[in-house]
């Protein structure tokens, strides 16, 4: 019997591994950035999964409603922060890729080796 949490954990780590694999193997800088984003998504899923409770409800109180079972609100707050940070980094990275393309005329990582040794 596979539990919901198991599925979510496996999925999230699969996403992280796929994302990192992309960073390791892709020469195209845009793909590297995408890989990092996939890994980001995986982590966000991981965080939310950790806060998941069987049958849990959104942690928002509404009028005339008892607390009942709520999912953990802390990871959700963390995910919110992580998403925004991820957005910031991604925006910066993509701008940089554009500048690199404008400057070197390529987004091929193996040709981007002006600095080495």
């Amino acid at each position, binding site marked *: 019997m596979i*539990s*919901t*949490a*198991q599925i979510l*954990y*496996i999925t999230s*780590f699969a996403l992280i*591994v796929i994302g*990192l*694999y992309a960073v*390791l*193997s892709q*020469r195209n800088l845009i793909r590297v950035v995408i890989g990092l984003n996939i890994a980001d998504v995986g982590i966000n899923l991981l965080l939310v999964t950790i*806060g*998941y*409770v*069987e*049958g849990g409800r*959104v*942690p*928002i*109180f*509404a*009028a005339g409603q008892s*607390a009942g*079972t*709520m*999912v*953990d*609100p*802390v*990871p*959700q*707050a*963390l995910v*919110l*922060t992580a998403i*925004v*940070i991820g*957005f*910031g*980094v991604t*925006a*910066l990275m993509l*701008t*940089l890729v*554009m*500048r690199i*393309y*404008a400057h070197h005329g390529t987004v091929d990582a193996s040709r981007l080796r002006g600095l080495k040794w």
Partner: protein
Amino acid sequence: MRKLTGLLLMGGFVLYLVSLVPGLFNATTPTALDSVGAAIIEDSRTTSGSANVVTAIVVQYRGLDTLGEVTVLFVSALGVAILASGFRDDVFRSMFADDDGGFILQYGGRLLMPFIVLVGVYIVAHGHLSPGGGFPGGVLIATAVFILILTGQSARMPHRLLSILEGAAGLGFIGLGALGFLGSELSFLTNTLPKGEYLTLLSAGFIPFIYAMVGIKVASELTTVVSVLTEAPGHESGKEEGRS
């Protein structure tokens, strides 16, 4: 070769992940919370007065994180602006769709814009009552500008105004937080404002105000990000000619 190495390495990683953290992959879903989250759910109504517990955490319990988060956004927007200012040629223009969207899209976009902004403001203002808050709301407001740009009507953005908004909103956040120094605890980011009536718009003390600041900040920063990328310096004039 590179792909093989990548596969091997990731395989090794998974191997150790599974062997060292086996508990993760044969876990049953928990049925009750035993983390600090449960305590916060209990506590949030009295401490923050916010119906949305996540909002309470984001703005109050972990307000410092949010200040940091805002700073991240601020600094990366600044970075994008700095980097974008270095475009010397038409690279970006040629990468970005340059043809105007046509009459219908343009006017549709303009028509839509106030409503999008309104929704954004609503989401910002109701962050403590419903899902939403400063970040999604701010993004929505920025979307309104983004639609204008997408439909090819990039009116020159008032960058100076945007950066003044950014700075002022940031200072506003800090200022609201610094109100905490007036309280008895002498603690930054303390929710000193009156909590108001639970589940109403004007409740939860400073949370809506902080979220308003965050909303302004996010909106102005995202607008900056999007607009600096579409307005490479030195191309405004050429662009105008091309348009007419």
